[in-house]
């Protein structure tokens, strides 16, 4: 049992669930306290000791099913059916076995002379069969199986490892010997039929085991794939479901940054005793310092002006960047946000009331200040900003532009960005297109780039989150 649990632990680890040795020991300790006949309790105990993340629970449950229940159930079905074949002969398995044992005794032999596999098959000892099959599997390296074309190969290898053919031969020899010793022809016929069925059941079970290993492998693979893809997935085409999931991921990433910031703030806060303040605060106590005051050091937080292209090609970058920025509001002194396609308008006030996600969706829809159903014109948008909002920028301001710089062959008016750059602390441009496309076709990225302190590709969540780290940490 312990061995099997260790094996299961390995499978969990391979699927990305980090199970420490201490936790495995906890699992053993837990099982000591419980009756493990109840499969649900057994599963719950393993889960409580080994799985510590909510999002891993479903992976665990699926693997548990694959590993624990499935195969044993399969064995029971397969060998149960094999034994049922005896009904046609009007003989019960137990009676037949008793007969065999008696006959063997007369011949001065016993069942124990047979190989383990032959014995286990004949007596339908499922536990023993499972152990033999697992042992053969680990010796044949079945856990390395990668695609279904290998199922046949690995199954054969396992059968060889178990000496399946040898066991079959033993059983057939046994039938012959029993026949020679005078066992009734009906019984011998029944035994021969049973042996064929058992052999078939064992072969099927091995194949079933191999297929399960493949499923486990695929499961690991799919899980890893799913987790990684969300971070890597291009912002260009996302389904509603993916947007929802990504929103959660962004929330977590933002939370992580918040934690870091909060530790940092606390360190800074622990300033020296502020004598001046302490005395002033305690005037009413006759100058006896009942309440202490500490100096608080302040850290420079940047001001942020964010210009979001909300045309459909870039909307998702803007969506998640806005979510980041507003979840991390306290990392900035002030945030002003603008949206543009061809017109440009300020949407800062949207974020002052209500829910972030609602506000973002409204902003992406033009926020009631611009028309989003036009063709992108960065030149016009920047010009508008230059005319109306240049005063929003000072030497503490970081300007963040999100856009693909696809200008539909309009005048880029790069000088507007130049002036913005001159006044700002720095200008950061995130472009969902790869740099190799910048400046080709109607992309005017090359014209804006000289006025950006940082210009980077931002096509997926991983890149976006790396950028956020740079901005606030």
């Amino acid at each position, binding site marked *: 049992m312990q061995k099997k649990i260790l094996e299961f632990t390995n499978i969990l680890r391979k699927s990305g669930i*980090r199970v*420490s040795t*201490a*936790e495995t020991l*906890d699992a053993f*300790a*837990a099982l000591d*306290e*419980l009756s493990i006949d109840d499969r*649900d*309790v057994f599963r*719950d*105990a393993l*889960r*409580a*000791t080994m*799985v*510590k*993340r*909510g999002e891993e*629970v479903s992976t665990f449950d699926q693997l548990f099913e694959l590993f624990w229940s499935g195969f044993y159930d399969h064995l029971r079905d397969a060998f149960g059916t094999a034994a049922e074949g005896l009904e046609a002969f009007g003989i019960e398995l137990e009676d037949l076995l008793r007969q065999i044992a008696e006959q063997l005794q007369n011949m001065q032999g016993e069942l124990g002379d047979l190989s383990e596999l032959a014995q286990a098959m004949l007596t339908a000892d499922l536990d023993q069969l499972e152990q033999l099959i697992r042992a053969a599997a680990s010796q044949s390296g079945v856990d390395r199986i990668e695609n279904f074309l290998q199922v046949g190969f690995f199954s054969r290898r396992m059968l060889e490892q178990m000496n399946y053919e040898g066991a079959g031969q033993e059983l057939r020899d046994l039938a012959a010997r029993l026949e020679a010793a005078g066992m009734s022809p009906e019984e011998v016929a029944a035994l021969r039929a049973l042996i064929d069925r058992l052999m078939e059941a064992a072969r099927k079970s091995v194949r079933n085991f191999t297929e399960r290993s493949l499923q486990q492998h695929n499961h690991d693979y799919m899980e890893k794939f799913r987790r990684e893809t969300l971070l890597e997935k291009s912002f260009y085409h996302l389904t509603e479901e993916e947007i*929802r999931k990504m929103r959660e991921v962004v929330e*977590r990433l933002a*939370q*992580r940054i*918040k*934690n870091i910031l*909060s*530790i940092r703030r*606390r360190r800074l806060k622990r300033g020296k005793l502020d004598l001046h303040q302490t005395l002033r605060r305690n005037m009413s106590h006759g100058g*006896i*310092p*009942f309440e*202490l005051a500490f100096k608080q050091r302040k850290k420079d937080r940047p001001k942020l002006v964010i210009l979001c292209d909300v045309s459909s090609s870039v909307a998702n970058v803007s969506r998640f960047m806005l979510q980041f920025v507003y979840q991390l509001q306290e990392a900035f002194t002030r945030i002003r946000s603008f949206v543009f396609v061809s017109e440009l308008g300020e949407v800062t006030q949207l974020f002052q009331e*209500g*829910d972030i*996600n*609602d506000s973002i969706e409204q902003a992406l829809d033009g926020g009631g200040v611009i028309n989003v159903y036009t063709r992108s014109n960065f030149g016009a948008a920047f010009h508008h900003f230059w005319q109306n909002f240049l005063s929003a920028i000072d030497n503490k301001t970081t300007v963040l532009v999100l856009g693909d710089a696809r200008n539909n062959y309009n005048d880029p008016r790069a000088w507007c960005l130049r002036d913005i750059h001159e006044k700002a602390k720095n200008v950061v441009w995130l472009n969902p297109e790869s740099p190799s496309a910048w400046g080709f076709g109607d992309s005017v990225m090359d014209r804006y780039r000289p006025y950006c302190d940082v210009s980077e590709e931002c096509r997926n969540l991983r890149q976006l989150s790396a950028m956020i780290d740079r901005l606030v940490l």
Partner: protein
Amino acid sequence: MFDSVEKVETLLGEEKYICDRKIATVVFLAEKLEKPVLVEGPAGVGKTELAKVVAAATGRSLVRLQCYEGLDEAKALYEWEYSKQLLYTQILKERFVQVMAGAKTLSEAAERIGKEDSVFFSEHFIVPRPLLHAITSEEPSLLLVDEVDKSDPEFEAFLLEVLSDFQVTVPEIGTVRAVRKPLVFLTSNNAREMSDALKRRCLHLFIDYPNEALERRILEMKVPGVNEHLMRDLVGMMQRLRELDLKKIPSISETLDWARALLALNATDLDEDVVNQTLNVILKYEGDVRRVQGDLSRLLARKTGEAKAPAAAPTVVPTRTVAKKGALH
């Protein structure tokens, strides 16, 4: 205390907590293995309540440490009662003068006073906070560290130390070791992920929204007097609401609140009017309310579609609606 998983179910049931096998198993193991339990899950699914009823069912005294951003060691463990210390120094001024009498230099005076320090840093001036309470408690106790995800990572690290060996060191007094290891429950809404180190030390329990059957049992137990078909409609609707993309998904506490509200209104059936009237009991955001109102006929239609036998329905439903409208307005 608990001699089997079933016993946990029964005893918690007596405390009016309906728990499924999964919860019971973890609670059982927590006691047997003396391990803390980290309970995670969405808001309002009964995490805090679980700790409370376990305390009640096992006759342990409940010590609750509510976490929040900025909670630090001092507030969780102990604080020196600074004003009391100060007060005493004022009162004992005379004594100080005596102690210092004859001291030739300032540093000699300071040294003499330093020797008396321990008077002020003794148990007498300590204000124990929940953690110290739990550790020093003579009788069996249950320490509930509620909403641990709201605390800062720094505090989590400190908590980890305490949970590892149930002893704390007060520099001026010495090491205090637990007389009896308290049973520990930590709850989290997953506002942030807890560290692996903490998780390794805990058993893990994830409580999700209940399924329909469980939710009905909870409702039956907590708000008796809801008639059978109202119960079915109400729970059915809650289950469906949770499938929507709402900002705040209503939880068990909302189900209970809603049932109470409906009882107060003498409602015996869910129709659009009653639902509209009471939607703010279960939905906390304007956006969510609008979202559900837009969908209401579908949510309700599904309800009646499921609830009634197709043939008999058309005559039954309208009359019932009319009758109740009269009662409500």
